[in-house]
């Protein structure tokens, strides 16, 4: 099937090239351009295949199984399925169920005397876009979509009369013209009734040159309703839908549980996580206006004649270019965004950002701009230990505890299976049940924190909605099942201990327990490893180059070994030593120290490789590395020294000192150092990442100012538009 799709894809591509060749340069790019874009596209498709997209090149128009498509049996099963009943009940908790106005009315009221600038105008439509994706969405929807069905906006059954409503639409932005007047942002916020701290569209700018030969280029950006909506694929709750109408990627805040993963994967900062409401919302393309033939509110409000809208690839009236990028715009091959640009005026070779991101844009030989590091904060090294604490703290704990719990459990269980004496001894010791409970508790705390980290924790159960695409769903399911497995295992252990203690004799049960426990343990190990794999994959985000590296794999699996061994060792080695099993204790010390060393060395090598990669990379990854080496420079060095030293010490203990008291002392010192090193490292992992977002302005969308406003209390005034520090 993949092959077939690819063939179709290839055919379409050929057609596209011919089409554009025929129209010459009028469309603003020549076939060479298309070729170079496509090369990147191919590379990107590999990445997409790797990211779990089953049909590369095929846009994910995903409407899914509707009730109308179900068989009677499916419906009945669904009706009496307790899971669905429970879920449907929970769905009503904290959900906006306000009644929709049933009065027959137009979808959007067109004002009297409406002018042409606000009216959609696409007399001619191309067959496919430059990436080869069909513009007619009915052709590429993976479920049957009826032409002329209602969007039922706010429950209104009226069907829009727009002749192009099944064509992919997109914005066109003439960067030459934007005056930065905020009218687009304001019109959007007015229409969508947004509080000051949110905006579906934002204007930032880049600037360069020197007085008076100074150039500022404002960039107005909202959602680009991408061909490859990474937000939709990433969303664990299936809050997103790419509609066959206009190709609008719409998100339902009432499905969203506020994990914010879409805000991580989107390269354009389109989804807006509202920390106050605890949910995401985003640009809805003003589909209500589109249905009555009007351009979106932002476009109609534009006062520089910069922003326009129509069927994608169309050249607006009086414009000559339909480029895919301008300085400051992230790599379009990540998502194939439906935005096109005109930018004919020459810009200085270097365009800087006024916000605090250490990024600037440098002109390349072909005239395009690429992001490079802007060493805004100089080269001084600092600690900034307080800033290690961030709103992602729960994820720091969740990932570390999960990895520790998995590592320790796998080691403990498999060690016994393989008959490693020291671990068998632990199994038979008084510490076994407390150790198991500790591992369950670690995992429980991790899961609880990650759940509480959600904007809407009560909606946690929706985390598994999108197993088809979302690595987060898969991760969540894997970890949840792992937890179920070890909890069952531990529970049964406690049960059999309790029965023994109370001298209850029930051979029917007692005989079964070990078998069930074995099943539960293998189940936990398999699901846990799958969960951990998808945890790694969750961070392989092209829009976050600092994360998008194999280092996440070595780090997460390395930590599973190192932290798992340290946790196990900290409990088990003293237990054996204190119960007079000195020999077994040194055996176990050797095993845990050795595995910890292996984990640390793996992670260390991964980090070394990561640093090497970041040094040669330009852009956001390198910028994050720059922050790592300066703002957190001393902290970074401390972590590296700790990791190298503890790795080395653990190795020495494992190889030479495990039978000595010195070995025990060294390991006792190294173990907490390992924890500190991993904690710092994980905290850095979250706070350092720099997404490929759009440039901000001096106050608005400037992380530096937001941080300052929170620190000094300006953020306490809601009209400043910065959300004060939120405590979940």
């Amino acid at each position: 099937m993949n092959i077939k799709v690819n063939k179709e894809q290839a055919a379409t591509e050929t057609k596209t090239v011919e089409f554009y060749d025929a129209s010459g340069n009028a469309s603003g790019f020549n076939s060479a351009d298309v070729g170079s874009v496509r090369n990147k596209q191919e590379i990107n498709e590999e990445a997409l295949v790797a990211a779990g997209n089953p049909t590369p090149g095929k846009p994910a128009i995903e409407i899914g199984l509707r009730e109308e498509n179900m068989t009677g049996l499916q419906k009945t099963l669904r009706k009496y399925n307790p899971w669905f009943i429970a879920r449907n009940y929970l769905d009503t908790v904290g959900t906006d169920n306000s009644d929709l106005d049933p009065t027959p009315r137009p979808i959007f009221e067109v004002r009297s005397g409406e002018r042409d600038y606000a009216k959609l105008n696409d007399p001619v439509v191309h067959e496919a876009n430059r990436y080869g994706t069909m513009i007619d969405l009915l052709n590429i929807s993976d479920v049957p979509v009826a032409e002329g069905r209602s969007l039922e906006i706010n429950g209104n059954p009226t069907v829009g009369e727009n002749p192009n409503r099944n064509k992919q639409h997109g914005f066109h932005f003439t960067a030459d013209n934007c005056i930065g007047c905020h009218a687009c942002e304001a019109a959007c916020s007015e229409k969508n009734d947004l509080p000051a701290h949110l905006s579906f569209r934002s204007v930032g700018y880049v600037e360069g040159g020197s007085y008076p030969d100074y150039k500022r280029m404002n960039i107005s950006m909202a959602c680009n309703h991408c061909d490859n909506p990474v937000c939709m694929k990433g969303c664990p709750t299936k809050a997103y839908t790419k509609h066959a109408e206009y190709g609008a990627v719409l998100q339902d805040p009432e499905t969203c549980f506020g994990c914010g993963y879409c805000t991580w994967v989107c390269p354009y900062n389109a989804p807006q996580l509202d920390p106050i409401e605890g949910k995401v919302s985003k640009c809805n393309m003003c589909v209500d206006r589109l249905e009555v033939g009007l351009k979106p509110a932002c476009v109609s409000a534009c006062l520089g004649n910069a922003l326009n809208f129509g069927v994608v690839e169309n050249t607006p009236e009086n414009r000559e270019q339909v480029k895919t990028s301008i300085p400051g715009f992230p790599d379009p091959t990540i998502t194939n965004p439906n935005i096109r640009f005109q930018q004919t005026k020459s810009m200085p070779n270097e365009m800087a950002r006024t916000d605090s991101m250490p990024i600037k844009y440098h002109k390349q030989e072909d005239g395009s701009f690429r992001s490079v590091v802007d060493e805004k904060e100089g080269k001084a090294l600092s600690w900034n230990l307080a800033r290690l604490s961030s709103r992602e703290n729960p994820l720091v704990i969740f990932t570390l505890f999960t990895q520790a719990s998995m590592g320790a459990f796998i080691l403990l269980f498999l060690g016994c299976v393989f008959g490693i004496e020291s671990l068998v001894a632990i199994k038979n010791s008084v510490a076994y049940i407390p150790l198991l409970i500790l591992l369950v508790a670690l995992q429980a705390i991790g899961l609880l924190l990650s759940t509480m980290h959600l904007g809407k924790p009560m909606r946690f159960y929706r985390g598994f909605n999108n197993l088809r695409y979302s690595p987060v769903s898969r991760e969540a399911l894997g970890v949840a099942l792992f937890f179920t497995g070890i909890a069952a295992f531990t529970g049964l252990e406690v049960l059999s201990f309790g029965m023994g203690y109370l001298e209850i004799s029930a051979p029917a049960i007692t005989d079964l327990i070990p078998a069930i426990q074995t099943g539960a343990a293998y189940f936990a190990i398999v699901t846990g490893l799958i969960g951990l794999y998808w945890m790694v994959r969750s961070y392989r985000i092209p829009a976050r180059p600092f994360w998008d590296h194999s280092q996440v794999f070595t780090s997460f699996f390395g930590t599973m070994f190192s932290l798992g061994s340290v946790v196990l060792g900290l409990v088990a080695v003293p237990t054996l030593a204190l119960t007079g099993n000195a020999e077994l204790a040194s055996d176990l010390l050797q095993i845990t120290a050795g595995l910890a060393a292996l984990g640390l060395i793996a992670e260390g090598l991964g980090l070394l490789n990561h640093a090497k990669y970041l040094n040669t990379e330009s852009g956001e990854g390198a910028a994050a590395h720059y922050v790592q080496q300066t703002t957190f420079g001393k902290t970074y060095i401390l972590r590296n020294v700790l990791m190298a030293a503890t790795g080395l010490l653990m190795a020495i203990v494992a190889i030479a000192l495990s039978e000595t008291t010195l070995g025990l002392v060294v390991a006792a010192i190294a173990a907490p150092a390992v924890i500190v090193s991993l904690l710092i490292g994980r905290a850095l992992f979250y706070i350092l990442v720099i997404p490929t977002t759009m440039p901000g302005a001096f106050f608005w969308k400037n992380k530096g100012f937001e941080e300052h406003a929170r620190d000094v209390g300006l953020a306490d005034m809601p009209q400043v538009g910065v959300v004060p520090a939120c405590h979940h």
Partner: protein
Amino acid sequence: MTSEKKKVGKKFSISKIFGRKEQNPIRIADKNIHQWKYTTCGYCSTGCSIEIGLNEKGKAVASRGNANADVNRGKLCIKGIFEHELFDAAGRGDKPLMRKAPYDAWQPSDWDSTLDHMGSEIQRIQETYGKDSFAIVSTGQLLTEEFYTLGKLARGCIGSNNYDGNTTLCMASAVSGYKRSFGSDGPPGCYEDFEHTECLIAWGSNLPEQHPIIYWRLKEALEKRNFPVIVIDPRVTMFAQFADIHLAITPGTDLALMNSLMHVILAEGLEDRDYIDAHTNGIEEVEACVKDYDPITASKICGISEDSIRQVARLYAKAGAAMSIWTMGINQSTHGSDGVVGINSLNLITGNIGKPGGTSLSITGQCNAMGTREWSSCSGLPGYRMLEKPEHRKQIADFWGIDEEFFPKKRGLAQTDIFPAIEAGEIKGLWLVATNPMTSMPNTARIRKILEKLDFLVIQDAYADVETTQYAHMFLPAAVWAEKEGCFTNTERRYNIVRKVQEPKGDSKSDFWIFNELAKRFPNGKKIHFPDTVEEAFDEMRELSKGAGRTLDISGMTHQKIEDACGIQWPYTEADAKRDEESTIATESGKLIAKGAQRLYTDGKFQTPDGKANLVPLPFVDNNEVPCTEYPFWMNSGRVVEHFHTRTRTGKMGNMNKYSPTPYMEMNPDAGAELNVKHGSYVRIVSRRGDAVVMVQLTQRVARNSVFIPFHFHDCVNRVCLGLLDPHSRQPAFKQGSIRIEAVDQDMAAQLNVERRTY
């Protein structure tokens, strides 16, 4: 999927996503608007027609541009887009307040006793210290009928000659310059001139920030037909960047440039000699004066190369029609009035007045600065009449039914002279109507000291938290904008109507009502008729606007006609109205669309005794406070698009305020590097007057020896501003001064920044 299924033409409900049983529909914010009400935007003077959406409870919840209006054609800028929010913005006054002294606590009061007290205090002060010892400073924010009523009250009842508007801070130089050139105030051009002009010079005007809708009109014209745009601005604004030619002028030297442009035009014989001969006086004096301003000399003064001066002069003079627009870059200068006269002269010698695309168009600031100029009697008597003319005094005295001797024979003090008169002890009482000198006047420290000296200070404002209230003895809560009804006049002389959208907040009252009620407390208030409705007041104005040769003739207008046409430009006489009624131009709705005069002086006849415009020689005297070793930076101030004036409105609405929530300063990175000033850090700016703390934005938009600071913030740029007064207009030179930059403790500065931000 089977192909069979694909064929099914079943109606799907998109709201059922992903096969979930309980599906959520697509929800898009629905403000449930039951009615859209026509009104006119109350921020700047572009004059946009706006519609406010009311929900079923009658609450204003949405704003949109009126697409039928010719001015804005459905567009609004950021401020208009959120205008419905201002009714409920924080800080509104809802009760009259009184106190014995500014250090006492406010006591809530009722209107009757408050106005009784106000009337008796004014009369006590006037009896003790003389008629002119009580001063009134009004605004450009009220409705025209309210201005007319205030004028009646001030000139006809209170009788103080120290009565002026805060338009002295923004448009006085334009008024003065128009009067000196053309014999009367009134911008002669219109926005439609963009469609016809072949060359446009913008003098100290940053349209995209200040007047985005006018900029859009210009952009629309440019998209249809390209013509050269020349922007003269010391700062590389977006407008300067987008201009064909940007002249980065040395601050305060535009007169030298104007003279030099005229020098080139006259030296090269590019002038319109026929027009000069037929319609102007004084060409010889001007020729003699501009001889001294050859491009080489001028280039040394204004920092613009001699070649550029010649190029622009030729371009402008050779264009079939050329126009100049300007804003505060010209007006707020030590020679603002001269600057306006210079622009007018440039246009007169090239024959660019009163023709399509050829004009001198001042771009006005406040929503009704024009209305106050026309009808408030601030600088004279209603309808551009002058106190200095006996026939005008008689006409108005007769119309109002009072003794003409009650009027002074000469205009009194301007706003900027009223404050020094308080300082000197000549004025003891002050009534401020919708103006906030603690933020808007130059040299805050001086103003603070002056306000402390007053025996009686009344603040009449929609906002109880305007900074000046801290020195007040009485606060009168006024209704704001569309809580009342009446007219605004825009930059292109267009009357547009503000319709009442909501009831005034709490116990606040329309300014019209307050003036009417206060008038009853004065003897003349019983003689003069103060009509109860704004429409009747408008009728009085119509009556007074009639007369042969008058440009400001609104006699053909009515409130309803103004709304139907989304604004009518004056002059619009009864004869014009009759013409329109007889013509067949009607809209789909059957409403008659009145069309006023787009331009003044189309016949080359001016409001001077001999009907000829004046060409005035303008020697450039550099009295600016220029940078020196002690104060090495030029300080420039100006507007940002998201704020209006002293932020009493926009500072409270997050969706505007968030774009610049705290004071900041644009500074050149090279200067920053030398002084070790970091981007985003705080510095203290110091002038000969005082200091202020601002956050630094390093940008090459400003010159190395220059900084730019938005003027909107309290306790900011006006603490350091000198504000020398223009000799003709008495307008302060806000934009030229010098400062130095000092380091400041960052934590203290941040704390100060928070404490200074009540909004």
